[in-house]
């Protein structure tokens, strides 16, 4: 990964919420056409990092460039080039799926005719065409997740930030999302992916970053991470637990013991 080809570049990114240090001195680079997996235990700072990189919250210090624009100085330019799927995406229950996508097209300044065409294509891809004209409040959780993903993809952004994209999806839909991400990356899109599903990170991501207590503890390919973990364990799960202390595993063991 050379600096010149980086689509996402964070340098010393730090975020304080009062006395709480959510993210500390985070530096990373993600190249064009790369899927970057961002892993970490709950509360490690993944979502805050994504929020900073998408211009949603301002860094306390440090800089970040996304698609060549500074997130703090040119947030609108960054937002135009970014698709963002939140961990718990907000959908308007009283809009239909088609209306929601049309609204998202308007927000991201996609021409109405083009937005309609893309919306039809996305609805068909996500098998939502039959429900496209029904209110979102009648959708299942998985359908909502797919619609939200459709909203993030509608303006065909060069950079995608996805926070738990397969959350709540059935295996078929999860596979669909994975295939879609591969196809997008083949077309040169960059994907920054936060997930707890290590299998996805293992098979989909070109590189992985692990964050714990607001600090990046490791970045690299799976092989590089294995090396950093001193070869302890083969799977990403083993590496992850090694890097993050495996406290959750120990808690689970203690709980099962108590039960």
């Amino acid at each position, binding site marked *: 990964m050379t600096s010149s080809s980086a689509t996402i570049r964070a340098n010393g990114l730090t975020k304080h919420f009062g006395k709480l240090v959510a993210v500390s001195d985070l530096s990373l680079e993600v190249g064009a056409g790369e899927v970057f997996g961002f892993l970490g235990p709950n509360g490690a700072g993944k979502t805050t990092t994504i929020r900073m990189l998408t211009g949603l*919250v301002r860094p306390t210090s440090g800089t970040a460039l996304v698609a060549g624009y500074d997130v703090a100085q040119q947030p609108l330019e960054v937002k135009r080039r970014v698709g963002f799927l939140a961990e718990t995406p907000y959908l308007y229950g009283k809009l239909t799926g088609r209306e929601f996508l049309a609204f998202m097209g308007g927000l991201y300044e996609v021409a109405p005719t083009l937005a309609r065409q893309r919306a039809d294509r996305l609805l068909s891809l996500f098998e939502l065409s039959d429900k496209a004209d029904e*209110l979102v409040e009648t959708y299942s959780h998985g359908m909502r997740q797919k619609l939200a993903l459709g909203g993030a993809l509608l303006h065909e952004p060069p950079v995608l930030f996805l926070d738990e994209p397969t959350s709540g999806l059935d295996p078929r839909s999860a596979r669909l999302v994975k295939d879609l991400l591969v196809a997008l990356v083949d077309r040169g899109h960059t994907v920054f992916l936060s997930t707890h599903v290590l299998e996805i990170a293992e098979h989909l991501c070109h590189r992985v970053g692990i964050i714990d207590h607001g600090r990046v503890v490791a970045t690299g390919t799976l092989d590089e991470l294995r090396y950093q973990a001193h070869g302890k364990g083969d799977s990403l799960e083993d590496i992850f637990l090694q890097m993050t202390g495996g406290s959750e595993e120990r808690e689970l063991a203690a709980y099962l013991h108590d039960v």
Partner: protein
Amino acid sequence: MLGLLLRQRMRLFWNRLGRGPRHTRRILGAILVAVFTIGFVVLAGLNAGVLVERVARTDPRAATAALPVLLIGVFALTLVTSLSSAFHHLFLAGDLELLLAAPIPNRSLFWLKVFEIWRDSLHVLLFQGAALYGFGQTLRLPGSYYFLALVVGLAVTLAATAVGATITLALARVRFGESILGLSRLLAVLLFLPIGVLGIPAFGFGRSRFSFFLGQGNLDAAATTLDNFGPPPTWAPSTWAAHLLLGDEAAGLSLVLLGVSGFAVFTAAQLAFEGLFEPGWERVRFSIPGRRGGPVRIGRRLPGGSPAGPIVGLLQKDWRTLVRDPRWRTGAVVSLVALGLPAMALFAGDPFARTAHALRFWLGMLPVPYLAYLFGSQQGAVTLAYEGRNITLLRAAPVGMGRILLAKGLGGLVLVMGVTWVATLALAFGHAGEPLEIAAALAAATWLALGGTSAALAGAALTADFEGDNPLRRVGCMGTIVTTLLSSLFFVSNTGLLVWWVTRTVISVPRPLVAFLPIVDWGLPIAALLSVAAIIIASRMGLRRLATWEAS
């Protein structure tokens, strides 16, 4: 972009009415709400016009002087409303993250938020429109007045909304997290209190007299008060607006001054939004602890431990939820201080001092039914409204919906009873009540609190939108109408019965009314029973709705 956002809001409104299950019922409900609201507000506004007409007969100059006073009142009311709702729209609206992630210019987001906050003051705008219309009719003003009144009315309310939003944003800058709303609501109380207190003489309570009707003496007093204000200050935008509306020789200059000041207000508000909104949103959204601590400290003060059964558990959970939400805490304080305190202050003056003791005592208790009605309507169903979508979660528990509703009712009842008992005791001691009288008054207060709470609970169970974003607005217009109907029936009949009983006991009935005695003797108890039956029937219907309600 702003057009897109506003069209989307319109679409949401239309879909809420016209799509989804039972949309015919929703449309009918909306028509009923519109008729009720517009009718109520227009009547109130036209009554203000009538008042102006009667003042004009006494002193034409005083009637003209009422115009800037009306505009100041409308500005203050809109400001109070916007201070109450700006916090939610600016910092807690569900779709903020989605909007902030999109490339929306700050200017569009600012105007969207102003529009959303302004929408909550629509009743003030309607009232103002009706009052200005009545004013124009009374003073036979030309057609251009009505057009200008519309423009000025919109500008005044929008400017007040922008000021309210700016104050909220500024408070978010200086204080962290949940303190913001408390401060803005406190400001709302301070702004509202003078209006409430100054408004009392207009209803005939001036000169220590008690009269529900506007006598000539009161009109003279109003005219004198307006006259005593003297000429309105030339520097005030309300004065410029009055000149413009009346089309006098200063109208042209006033138009220029209004344009410049309006531009300055909106530009300053927008600049404040651009500088303060994002830091404020971050602070509120991510609950940064303040210097005095956040919700954790409140939680530590509340009794803990495992609850003894589902009803106690629900009560404990509801109380924790309410106490930890600054919107509820400050809203309850606003209701009490802004609406209850003037009534208490009025009756603390002992307006029936010259009557017989029993009459003095019982009529001096009239703020109690008022408070039970007011607080019961506003807080009686708050625990149910806060439950929101989690109603389905409760239904999954092995507890009958009747017991759940009972727990919800108890939660509200404790609040309403607390207020009515404090008011009863304060007034009772103030009016030198006997122990037996005080006990009877407390029993009556309990009964009225129970009625007010039950009516509100039934109204909410029948109509609340449990998926609404803001828990304080889940009981919407339809719920307010149902609650008002049930409460009015209950309070009119039950308070009437009490007053009638006191009257029969203490004084002899005037001779012309003797013929009606049997009708009133029987009619009032029957009406009181019917009001209770109506609440029970509505509660049972609400119970059925809760038992089958499904979250989307």
